[in-house]
Every structure is written in C-alpha cells, then in structure tokens.
C-alpha cells in the first residue's frame, strides 16, 4: 500500500527539495507562513520578495510554473470575497474608476489576497515535493500525537477507496435514470450517504480485525525512521529565515 498511493498533487522528482526530510520541510513551510502572516500589510515590497523566494524554491524543486499556478486556483472563492471587501468595509473612502471604495477595505483585500496566495503557494509546493507517507512521518516527527497521525494515515489510505465506493453508487444511481434535480431528491442522496457510512464503518471493523490478527497492539511500527542532519535543517530553514529578515525589514521601514 505504499508505492501506488502517491496523491495526485505529488510530482515525482529527485530535486534537492524532494530529498529533504519531511519534518524539516513541514517546519519550514509553517514558519514561512507564520512570518508572512505577521508582516505588516503596508510593506507591499515584502510580499513581492516572498513571492520571489517561493519562486526560487519552485525552481530548485523543478516544479513548473503552470502546475503551481493551476493549483493556486483553489483560492478563487476567497478572491471573490476579497474583491467584495472594498465595497463593504468602513472608514475613509476613495474614488477609483468612478466607484467609491473604502481605503481600509482595499488594504484588507490586498492583505487577504497577498497572504492567502503566498500561504496556498507554500502548501502547494510542500504537497508537490513530499510523498504522503513521508508527510505523515514528518508530522509524527514533529510530535503530533501518534493516534492522530494514524487516523490521518487511515483516512488518506482509505479516502480513495471510500470515494470510489461513492462514485460507484453515483454511477449505479445515474444508470437507473436518477438525476438530483432538487429538494425532492435529498432523500436518495442521504440514503446513499447512510449506506456509505455503514460500509465505511464495517470496513473499519474488518481492517481493525485484520490488524489485530497481524499483531497490532495500539501503535504502528515505524520502519523508515528519518532523521535530519544539521545541514538539512539549515537548508530547509533558509526559506523562513530569509522571510524573517524581510519581515523585520518590513516592520523597521
């Protein structure tokens, strides 16, 4: 169950970023996002520098720009929200192209757009260069409770199975002429969800029994323990450190 389960967001590669131990990458991304969020929004140039930093990481990781940009589309709902902000926020107003916009709202929109986009880009880079199993191991190395990591790993492993189960049910429904058109069909969808729950739960029980019969005693054995050398940590933390320098400059200027 290891090799064939690379998630769709992962881009296989052998770049230096791919080779870093997962927990250093997780720590670096998290620190980077924290630094970005605590940058004052007035320091516009700082966000430009952050973007350049991320671009450099993407270049080193050999993640093509098109891939990164396409993944950024997940942010679209918030862009819509951010666009609304200048219209509803309060305070001093300015006229832009004949529309009265709130200065504060404009800053707020910029704030959410810039920070949100940088955050999403950082996560996308992380997901693109780290395998799932590694990611979970990294979380465990970062002292996330083992039980939580196990739940997450089961969720990831069986997510596709359950989703496929749901897809089969949908195909079964549709091939019998069902089309969810309105409120009247909620019952059918809900019954599908109910059946899906029963199937997932029963599968969980079977998996548990199978695990017990193979000697599971409450914790998973870790066979591929990864450790990070000082050099690797330095390498990974170069990103958030550079960002921190920019952030401090942003506050100082």
């Amino acid at each position: 169950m290891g090799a064939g389960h690379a998630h769709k967001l992962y881009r296989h590669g052998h770049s230096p970023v791919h080779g870093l131990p997962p927990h250093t990458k997780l720590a670096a991304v998290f620190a980077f996002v924290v630094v970005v969020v605590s940058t004052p929004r007035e320091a516009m140039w700082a966000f430009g520098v952050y973007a350049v930093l991320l671009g450099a990481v993407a270049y080193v990781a050999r993640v093509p720009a098109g891939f990164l940009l396409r993944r950024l589309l997940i942010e679209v709902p918030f862009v819509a929200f951010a666009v609304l902000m200048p219209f509803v926020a309060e305070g001093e107003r300015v006229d832009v192209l004949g529309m009265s916009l709130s200065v504060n709202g404009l800053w707020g929109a910029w704030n959410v757009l810039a920070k949100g986009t940088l955050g999403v880009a950082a996560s996308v880079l992380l997901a693109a260069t780290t395998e799932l199993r590694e990611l979970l191991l990294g979380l465990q190395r970062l002292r996330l409770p083992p039980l939580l990591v196990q739940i997450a790993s089961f969720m990831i492993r069986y997510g596709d199975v359950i989703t496929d189960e749901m897809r089969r049910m949908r195909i079964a429904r549709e091939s019998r002429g069902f089309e969810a058109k309105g409120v009247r069909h909620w019952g059918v969808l809900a019954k599908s969800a109910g059946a899906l729950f029963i199937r997932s739960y029963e599968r969980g029980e079977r998996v548990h029994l199978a695990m017990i019969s193979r000697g599971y005693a409450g914790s998973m054995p870790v066979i591929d323990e990864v450790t990070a050398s000082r050099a690797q940590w330095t390498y990974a933390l170069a990103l958030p450190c550079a960002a921190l320098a920019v952030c401090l400059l942003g506050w100082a200027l």
Partner: protein
Amino acid sequence: MHVPDGFINAPTSAATGVIAAGAIAVSLRGARRELDERTAPLAGLVAAFIFAVQMLNFPVAAGTSGHLLGGALAAILVGPYTGVLCVSVVLLMQGILFADGGLTALGVNITNMAIVTTVVAYALFRGLVKVLPRTRRSVTVASFVAALVSVPAAALAFTVMYAIGGTTDVSIGKVATAMVGVHVLIGIGEAAITALTVGSVIAVRPDLVYGARGLTHKLKLRVNGELVDAPQAEPEPAPVAARTSHRKVWAAGLAASLVLAGFVSFYASADPDGLEKVAADHGIDKRAEEHAVADSPLADYGVEDVDDARLSGGLAGVIGVGVTVVAGSAVFWAVRRRRSDSTSPSDTTDTTDTTPSTSTTSV
C-alpha cells in the same frame, strides 16, 4: 468556510490554535472510550467517510448546490469526541495537501468547523433526545435540529473570531448578518441531509448510531398471542421514573442554553462595535441602503428599524436563532409529511445501490 491565511491576525490564530490543540487532546482521550480499542482504524475510516461526504453535492435551488460540512453527522453517528477528531483530521489534511484553508488559520478552521459544530450539535442533540419520547423518530428530529443550529453556530463563532482578530474593519453587524443569514440557509440543507442520513442508518444498523444508543427496546417474546418480556441477560437500564424527572432538568437546561446563546451572541457581537464606534457611524447610511436591496428577511429584520450598530448586531444573532428554529420545524414537517406520503420512488432507486436490507425497512 475554510479560512485562508491572513484573514485573521496572528495572535488570534495562535489563541484558536491553542484552543484547538486542547480540544483535540481531550478528544483523543474521549475517543478511546467511544470506540473501545478500535480508535485508529475506525476513526480513520470515518474521517475518510466525512471527506467523501463533503464531495456529495446536493442541489439547493435551480443551478446552485451545496455540500455537507459533516460535523453534526459525525457527532451523531460516532460520538462527539471521535467526531471532533475526524473532522479535525480532515481539515488538517485539506490544509496540508490541498491547500484548502491556510496553515496559520488551521486553529481557526478547526475551532469553527470541527469543535463548534460538533459540540453544539451534540449538546443540542443529547438534550433533545432526553426531552423527546424515546423513539427512533425523535433521534431523526433531534439530528435535524442539531445540524440546523450547528452551521449558524459555526458562522457565529467565526464572526466572534473576526471581531477579535479580523484584519479588515467590516462592521461586525454586517459580518454577523451576512454569515448567519447565509449559513441558516446552508444549515437547512445540512440539517435535512443529516437527518435523512441518520434515519437511513438507523433503519439498517441502529447499533452503529452513537446517538441512538440506549434506545433499544426490551426484547419481547410472543407467547400464546401475548407479548412477554424476555428474560434479562444484562442489567436493567435506568428506571422510567428517574428518566422523566431527568427530562425536566434537560428541558430547563436546553431552554437556559438557548437563552444564554442569545445573550452571548449579543454581547460578543456588541463589544467590538463599541470599540469601532467611529467606523460604525460612517457606515450606517451605507448599511441602510444595502439592506433595502437585500431580500433576505433576516437582513431586513436585523437593521431595518434599528440604526444602533450594537443592537442590530445582537438582534441579527437573536433573530438568526429564532428563524432557525421556525424554519427548522417548518421544513422538518414538510419533509416528513412528504416522506410518509410517498417514500416509494426514492426507495426503489435506492434499492440498487445500498445494502439490500435498506429497501425492506422504511424509516
């Protein structure tokens, strides 16, 4: 409702992160009790289920469709602790893998969507099940109400966080009205689907529904045409007299918590507006014209004749709760009547893709 980075400022994100971590620590302990020894695989599978169910789109009106949040559903099906864990894990994975919801906003997202929805839904559900008669139908009713309230409750929680640490000064009354208004609508869909789902699970495997534990009837044997209690294999459940006295306590508690919720939401939304009074004064004229355009009755009610920002913010919250209850009961009756009138079309479609026993048992 996945909050991105930069939406809520850093201190508030950190504080909610601490809250989320604490709640998860408590849930980790509680989940072991709910699921015996099977925590990891079962909770993982349930998380996968929630993940899948969030992709199940249901049509709302012409063209638009919504999807489940699943907090209430998880709490009722597998218990509150496991529910919190499962939804949190789903959110964590969505944040890290799919970049859906910011990493620094993880605390905000988990607090809102995993903890508030689950806890509110389960508390309400428990209370209602205690108050209502002990039948399967009341479990369905209770899950409807619980899911209905849980979604606007999460919206309110978000508004509170926004009031404390929002990065833009959109007035809190506006945020509250918009968030609660929209989420009451979402809540209705969520409630209907949750109730129907719980109903369909209860029809097939009532033992799997955590919220319906203790509703099993005593085993009866028909001996010479009359029903006789089967000999007890396990100790008796609590006697009936004790339960009815509990029922009053629960009813009082439920009423008190509703009143409290109203007041808390009032103060929570009123407080920061006091701080931003100047900003609010600027916005009042704008706000009046905006709400004249909005055709949601809630939006009209909230601010039409109350121009004080504090009051209108609080009112919107209280009215939100009121509308929730009224709309909830109305929709519930409508849905139930329709279901009892004609269950056949949905049942026949369903026969094919669920377990065979679903078709033979009606909810």
